[in-house]
């Protein structure tokens, strides 16, 4: 992969994480392409012979841009109690691998994530971790996320809710 593209896309993902961690959700929304498919299937514990240990029939979310807009606007209301007072969040993004796609503007991007959250005055923190598969696209000279699939590693999530964007 062209090292400029690799660098640009990595920087784009870090910038995205910065916006989310600083609760700039409306700005984050600008990074999503209009036809984005944003999904998080379930990890399951199954025998090796089943091939995949993901169950894609059920998901934690399967959002369109419109669905994400509602979730974002909700966070700007006065009564989204789960984030008011806000939790403190960090998205650690690593192991970014960029591959070209059939369309010359699109790139298939794999990254690992570790999400940590501190809520209220609790000493114990929450975490989620796994892998993301994105299609990242150049639209009018700007990078946009055209598709994201979030694969959690836990079959029973240890976060009390999935109020965060991953």
């Amino acid at each position: 992969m062209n090292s400029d593209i690799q660098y640009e896309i990595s920087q784009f993902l870090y910038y995205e994480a910065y916006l989310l961690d600083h609760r700039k959700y409306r700005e984050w929304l600008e990074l999503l392409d209009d036809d984005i498919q944003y999904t998080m299937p379930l990890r399951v514990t199954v025998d090796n012979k089943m091939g995949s240990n993901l169950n894609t029939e059920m998901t934690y979310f399967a959002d369109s841009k419109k669905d994400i807009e509602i979730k974002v606007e909700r966070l700007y209301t006065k009564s989204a109690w789960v984030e008011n007072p806000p939790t403190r969040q960090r998205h650690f993004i690593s192991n970014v691998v960029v591959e070209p796609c059939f369309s010359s503007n699109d790139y298939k991007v794999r990254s690992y994530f570790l999400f940590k959250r501190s809520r209220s005055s609790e000493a114990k923190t929450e975490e989620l971790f796994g892998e993301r598969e994105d299609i990242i696209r150049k639209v009018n000279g700007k990078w946009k996320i055209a598709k994201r699939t979030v694969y959690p590693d836990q079959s029973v999530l240890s976060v009390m809710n999935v109020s965060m964007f991953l």
Partner: protein
Amino acid sequence: MRTIDWKEVEKNIENGRFPQWLVTDPEIYELEKERIFGRTWQFLAHESELKEPGSFVTRMMVDDPIILVKNKNGEINAFLNSCSHRGVRLCTEDYGNKKAFSCPYHGWTYNLNGELIGVVAGNKVFGESMDKSEWGLRPVPRVESYQGMIFGNLDPDAMSLEDYLGEMKWYFDIMLGRSDGGMEVRGVPQRWVAKANWKMTSENFAADPYHVQTTHRSAVELKLTPSDPLYASYGHQVVLSNGHGINVITSATGRSNNIYQGMPESMWSMFEKNLNKEQLDIFSRVQNFVGGVFPNLSFLSSCSGTEGTKYNHLQFRVWRPLGPDQVEIWIWYMIDKALPEDYKEKSYKGFIATFGAAGTLEQDDTENWARIVEASQGLMARDRNLSYNNMLNYLMGLDYLDPDENFPGPGKAYPTCYTDHIARSMHKYWLELITKEPEVKSHE
């Protein structure tokens, strides 16, 4: 264990007061596991999760791991998921299909009926004295089902599942038995761990439409739900036997904006065939059914959809206690098999947008459930002598509401859902079970 003044507890519960120390007290939790979860019917699976002979799922009855498996005759059996040799958890998979279950420790193997069929080196090491038929998997004492819902009970002397569900069966028929071919579970249940006490989460679904206007106010701010603070109150709160209950939420006019919860007209003739006149009347007027089967199975049949058309979705959920202040939430999404695929897809999207770990409504519930246990574990909240008068308030509707005699369904139907009648009934049944000493059985 310190002495508990149950008479005092009873007096308070009768008067709509639930002592706060009972919520997360560790000794109470131990009693609940033995006397409530050890005696009541626990939901295990829906029949559609076990399609072929050899299909299995693993589940939990509080701390007991359970295997449910379909045998060659199509019968579903449930066993303790523990090898009878050294107690190893036999199967760690969530689901799959097997001809036999083999233990990875010493290789003992069981067939789909739970019979021990293979012992490595068999007679050479155990001799002739070991009778394999004595060492099969231990069956869950009682397994029964209703409308495809499979339940287990650890008490061999428990009343039948149908007797236990009682009047709830009439409402299950509407939600689960309305269409030809019945319901199917989509994929697998969502699972996650929340900070909450199981009683409070059960109550949230079974007995508490009053929380909707505040907990879910963000939906009002976004104009997704009506601004009328009474909107979740319209309809009836119906108290059923054995601590069960259902809220039949309609609207200010007593009717629904979406007949049959937004089900397509192509389904209506099935409903008319499978339901009686009274069931159809309620089903045509309801916006939301929300309720619970005591102790920890909850359900919601609702309508969702952001762009005009509404789609019905049905969810069942188990609050598996992991401790006094933790639950593992399991949610099964179900849909009528007979519906067109396009409708199923839209219904599913409406469900996950609002409920489940990432659902916009559910997120704020988890925050409030956490805050209850965070404030209930200190000395002052757990004061048993109640010198601080630490009572949770269940006074709503206590002395002024009478049941509506014209309500067409079974149960005691109060003419609003903003009342604590179901919660008080849950508390009474909880008290009845928790104060009942285990019977000492003589083995002769």
